[in-house]
Every structure is written in structure tokens, then in C-alpha cells.
């Protein structure tokens, strides 16, 4: 596959002694796209979901508070690692791997 220009982090050979940065795709629901200039998908990195969310906050300030509260992930915001709800993994401490896709979906709920 030809690379037209620029370099992709995955094409660069890893430096000796350094781990390559992890690239995680994060799918953003409609109501949080105000934090991403309308983008429905952004990239970030982190060894765990917590680190990833902190990383995203540096580029999309204010978004973290919509997903996380003092207790961890907000009750009515669903976060998935690939196709699994992270509540069935390790919640905000769920470990991530390069190439993972994290999806955020607000609960559809009411009374």
C-alpha cells in the first residue's frame, strides 16, 4: 500500500526502548460532538480507559465531565470497548490495546 505523504505512527519503526504510541479510535455520540468540532470520531491514546479519557480532555476540554463523575463512569453514559460494555470488563480501568475502538453512547432512558 503506497503512502502518499506524511508518516503514520504505525509505519515508523519503534525507537529502541520505547513502546509505540497506542492509537484508539473513539466514537462520539451526537450530543458530545460540540466538544469535537462536530467530529463523530476522534483518536486518542491511553493504556486504560481512564488514561484515554484524560488524553481526550487535553484536546476536547469539557468532554470528560460529561462522561465521568466522582464515582467513575456516569451511570447513564454507556462506554464500550469494541462491542463490550466496559461495565462487564473493568469499568474506567479497562485496559486498551492499539487499534481498539471505544464507543460512547448516552443511555436511552426516561420515566
Amino acid at each position, binding site marked *: 500500500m503506497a503512502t502518499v505523504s506524511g508518516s503514520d505512527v504505525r509505519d515508523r519503526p519503534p525507537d529502541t526502548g520505547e513502546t509505540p504510541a497506542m492509537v484508539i479510535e473513539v466514537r462520539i*455520540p*451526537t*450530543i458530545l460532538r460540540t466538544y469535537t468540532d462536530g467530529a463523530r470520531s476522534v483518536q486518542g491514546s491511553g493504556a486504560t480507559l481512564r488514561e484515554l479519557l484524560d488524553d481526550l480532555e487535553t484536546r476536547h476540554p469539557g468532554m470528560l465531565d460529561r462522561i465521568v463523575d466522582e464515582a467513575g463512569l456516569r451511570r*447513564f453514559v*454507556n462506554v*464500550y470497548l469494541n*462491542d463490550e*460494555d466496559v*461495565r462487564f470488563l473493568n469499568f474506567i480501568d479497562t485496559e486498551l490495546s492499539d487499534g481498539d475502538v471505544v*464507543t460512547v*453512547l*448516552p*443511555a*436511552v*432512558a*426516561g*420515566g
Partner: protein
Amino acid sequence: MLTIRQDLVDAIVAHARADHPDEACGVIAGPFGSDRPERFIPMVNSARSPTFYEFDSGDLFRLYRDMDLADEVPVVIYHSHTATEAYPSRTDVSYASEPQAHYVLVSTRETGPDAGPYEFRSYSIVDGQITEEEINIV
């Protein structure tokens, strides 16, 4: 304004009656940008409650994945009230997260699971504001 086919109205009402006294809930998906409800998708109320509804998180993931693949959006998000009027509650407003959706409320308070009068109303809920809409049944 919500424009919706009669058979879809009937499907929502039938679902509400079937689940009474628990709240029924679901989505009608339609092509992105069309504002046309087309594909009726009743959902399981994982709360199984007469006063609360929530889509199971796995069901929700698959719903949005499937809509995405078909280039659809949730045009209608519906649920039923089983003892109160067909008007959004404070809870409904605080969890409304699709600004473009028509939030349809049905009330089965009068006749429950049986045939008979029901309330069927539609609302836009944006930034905490409720705006009732006219319904055009086609």
C-alpha cells in the same frame, strides 16, 4: 411536526398495550436527513418498570451500529406512560440525548392493555426545553 404512517402509530400503541403496566420503549429509524420514520424497532425495557425505562446497553450498541451501517438515525424515540399523561417527565427531559429526534409519548392510563382511548403525542426536547409538535398521520 412529526409526519408518521398510521401503521407505525398502531405499532407503537400495540407495543405500549402489550407491555402495560410496564413502560414500553423503542425507536423508529429513518434515513439520515429525511426526518421520515420508517423502520419500527421495539426495544426491551431493561428496567421492566411502570415508572422507568432504559434500553439494555448491549441492545443500544447493536441498535446504533445497525442504524449507522444503514445510514439511519433514530427519527422517533418512543415510550409509554402507564399511569400518567403522555407528557415528558423531568426524567425524560434529563436523559433526552438526541436533539433531532421526535420524542413520542403514549399513555395507556385509561384502558391499559385493552383496546380503547389512548394518548399519543410528540415532542422535541432540546437543551432541556420541551416543545410539543403537531402530528401528521399519513
